[in-house]
C-alpha cells in the first residue's frame, strides 16, 4: 500500500480533529476559525464536525481571547488558541508571559494551564514587516512555556497531539509557507514527545542544526553539498524548549563543524542559544567556529528582491558550509 501523504495544513487539521474527538475538553478560540477555517484554511471543516461551541469565533481581540484561554485552561478546558499571524503575538504577551507561563509556579504548583497557542512564522510571503516575523525566540526565553517548531507534516501532527495533551502552555509555531508541503503521515494514532530532536538527514562532514522553515532549506542545501562531496547532517530540534541538547551536541562532536539556522532574527535569537549550547558542549571537538544564520536584523521589507535576501536560502547556507569545510 502506498504511503499516505498529507499537506502540512491537513496534518494540523487532522491532529486537532482527532484530539477533539478524543477529549471533549479541547476547544479552539480565534479569529475566523469557524466557518472561514482561518485565512490559511487550516481549520476548514472543524466547526461542521464539532460545532460553534467548540470552534469559537472571537472578535479581533488577541489579548482578550488569549486571556480567556488561560482562564478556561485553569478551570477544566483544554483550549487551542489561534493567533493568525505570529506578529500578533505582541498583543498577547502579558497573557502568555505573566499569566500562562507563571500560574503554575506562582501558585506553588496548584493551578495548571494546559493550553496550546497555535500561530505562524516565516517570511517570503510578500506580507511585509507586520505579517512576516518569526518571534518564537521570545517565548523560548520564558520559563513556564514550551515552544514547538514542526518542520514536516508528520512532525506537525505528532507534535500538536502531544502539545494538546501537555499540562503546560505550549506555543506551536507553523511556517505559513509550509502549509502546502506534502509528506507521509500515517493514518494511525501517534504522538511525538516534546524535547526530542530528529536527525532529518545523516551526514559526516558538517551539521546543519535547523528549525521549522529552515529544515527544508537545510535539506536542500545538503543535496547541493552532496554533489560537491560534502556530507551534511541535518538536525531538527523540533522544540526550542524543552531542548534536546544531547542530540545536537553529539552531532556537532561527530562532524566537528556546525551551522545553526533559524528564521528568527539572528541577534539574541534561537541561533545564539543553539550556538552557545554547542560551544559549551562540543568546543574541543570543533574544527571551526559555529556559524549562525538567521533573519537579517531589519524589519522584513515588502519589495520581493529585498525580502528575499533577509532570510537564509539553500544557496547562502551551502556557501557558508563550503567555507566552513574549507572548500569555498
Amino acid at each position: 500500500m502506498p504511503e499516505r501523504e498529507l499537506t502540512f495544513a491537513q496534518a494540523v487539521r487532522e491532529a486537532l480533529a482527532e484530539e477533539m474527538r478524543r477529549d471533549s475538553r479541547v476547544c479552539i478560540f480565534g479569529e475566523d476559525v469557524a466557518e472561514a477555517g482561518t485565512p490559511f484554511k487550516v481549520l476548514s471543516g472543524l466547526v461542521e464536525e464539532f460545532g460553534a461551541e467548540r470552534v469559537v469565533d472571537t472578535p479581533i481581540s488577541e489579548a482578550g481571547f488569549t486571556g480567556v484561554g488561560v482562564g478556561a485552561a485553569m478551570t477544566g478546558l483544554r483550549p487551542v488558541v489561534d493567533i493568525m499571524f505570529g506578529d500578533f503575538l505582541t498583543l498577547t504577551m502579558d497573557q502568555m508571559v505573566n499569566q500562562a507561563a507563571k500560574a503554575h509556579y506562582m501558585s506553588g504548583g496548584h493551578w495548571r494551564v494546559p493550553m496550546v497557542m497555535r500561530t505562524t512564522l516565516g517570511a517570503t510571503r510578500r506580507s511585509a514587516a507586520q505579517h512576516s516575523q518569526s518571534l518564537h525566540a521570545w517565548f523560548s526565553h520564558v520559563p513556564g512555556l514550551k515552544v514547538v517548531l514542526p518542520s514536516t507534516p508528520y512532525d506537525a501532527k505528532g507534535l500538536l497531539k502531544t502539545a494538546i495533551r501537555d499540562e503546560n502552555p505550549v506555543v506551536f509555531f507553523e511556517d505559513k509557507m509550509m502549509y502546502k508541503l506534502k509528506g507521509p503521515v500515517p493514518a494511525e494514532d501517534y504522538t511525538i514527545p516534546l524535547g526530542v530532536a530528529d536527525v532529518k538527514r545523516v551526514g559526516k562532514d558538517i551539521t546543519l542544526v535547523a528549525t521549522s522553515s529552515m529544515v527544508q532549506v537545510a535539506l536542500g542545501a545538503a543535496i547541493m553539498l552532496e554533489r560537491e562531496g560534502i556530507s551534511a547532517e541535518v538536525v531538527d530540534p523540533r522544540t526550542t524548549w524543552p531542548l534536546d541538547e544531547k542530540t545536537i551536541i553529539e552531532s556537532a562532536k561527530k562532524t566537528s563543524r556546525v551551522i545553526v539556522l533559524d528564521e528568527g532574527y539572528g541577534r539574541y535569537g534561537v541561533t545564539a542559544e543553539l550556538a552557545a549550547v554547542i560551544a559549551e558542549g562540543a568546543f574541543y571537538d570543533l574544527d571551526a567556529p559555529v556559524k549562525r544564520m538567521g533573519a537579517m536584523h531589519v524589519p522584513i521589507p515588502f519589495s520581493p528582491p529585498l525580502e528575499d535576501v533577509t532570510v537564509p536560502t539553500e544557496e547562502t547556507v551551502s556557501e557558508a558550509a563550503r567555507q566552513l569545510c574549507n572548500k569555498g
Partner: protein
Amino acid sequence: MTTAASKPEAGRETTTEKDKGLRAYRQMVRIRLFEEQVNELYTRALMPGLAHLYSGEEAVAVGICEALRIDDYITSTHRGHGHCLAKGASPDRMFAELLGKEAGYCRGKGGSMHIADPATGNLGANAIVGGSVGIATGAAFAAKRLGNGRVAVCFFGEGALGQGSLYEVMNLAQLWKLPVIYVCENNLYNEYTHFSETTAGTILGRAAAFGIEAASVDGQDVRAVHEVATRLVQRARAGEGPTFLQADTYRYSGHHVGDINREYYRSKQEEQHWKTERDPIKLHANWLLSQSQADAATLEQITTEARAEMETAVKFAIATPYPSVDQVEQDVYA
C-alpha cells in the same frame, strides 16, 4: 438598580439573617486585624517585599464573597488579602506565604501579591493591574461550557480601567453571556494619583457601552454590597450573562505600607473623614447594635477571637520553615 439595603422589619429577623450579619462583621474584623499584623510584620522588617493593605475596603470583599459558593471563582489583585480571606483562605497559610515559607498557599513562591487556592476557587491574586480579567472571564467560559453552575468574580481596582484588555474581555463576556461579575473597587487612587486625573467619562458608562448591566454601591456598607452581589450572582448563575459593579470605597493606608507621606496626593483630613465617618466595620457594628442583632460584648468577643486567631497565625508563619533551596526549580512545568 437599587443599592440601599432593605431594612428588616422589627421582630422579623430570622436566626439566619442574624447569623449572616454577625458573620459579615466577623469576616471584616478578621481582614482588618490580618492587615494590622501585616503592617506590623512589615514595619518590623520580618516581611520581605511589598505589602498593599486592604484596610478600609473590607465590606466589598466580604459583601461579595458571602454571596458566593466555595466552588465559585474569584480573581484578585495586588491588594488581595481581603479577597482571599473573604473567600475562605486560612490566615496561617496566608501569613506563611507572605513570609515566603513552605507552608504558604504557594509554597512561598508567590508571596503577598499572588495567593492562589484551588480549594476556595481562588484563581490567584495578580500583580499586573488588570492582569486577571482574562483569567476570570475564561473561568466563566469554562463554567458555562461545563455546565457546573459556577460564577466568576473579577476584582480589580479603578486603576485597571486604564487597561484595554478589560474592555476586550467585557466585550467577549457580553457576546457569549458568560457568568462573570466585574467588580471595580473604586478606592479613588491609582497608586498616588486621584482617579479623576486618569479616568475620562464615567465608570458605569464603560459597562453600558457593551450593554452590560451595571450598578454602583456604597462599598462601605456591607449589607448593601451583599444585597446587590446576591442579585448579580443569581443572575449570572441563571445564565443571564455578565454584570459590572462599581463599589465606592477607600484605601486607609498608602498604596503600599512604605507609602507614608501621602499629603502630596491626599489630605489627612480626607483620610480621617473616611476612617471616622465611613468605616465599614463601625457602620456595620452600629447597625447590628441598633437592630439588636448583637450586643457590645458579642462584638468585642468577635474582635478578641479574631485577634487571637491572627496572632496565632503569625506565630505559626514565623516559626514554620522556608522552602529548601532545591525547590527553586520545582513546578516551573506541570
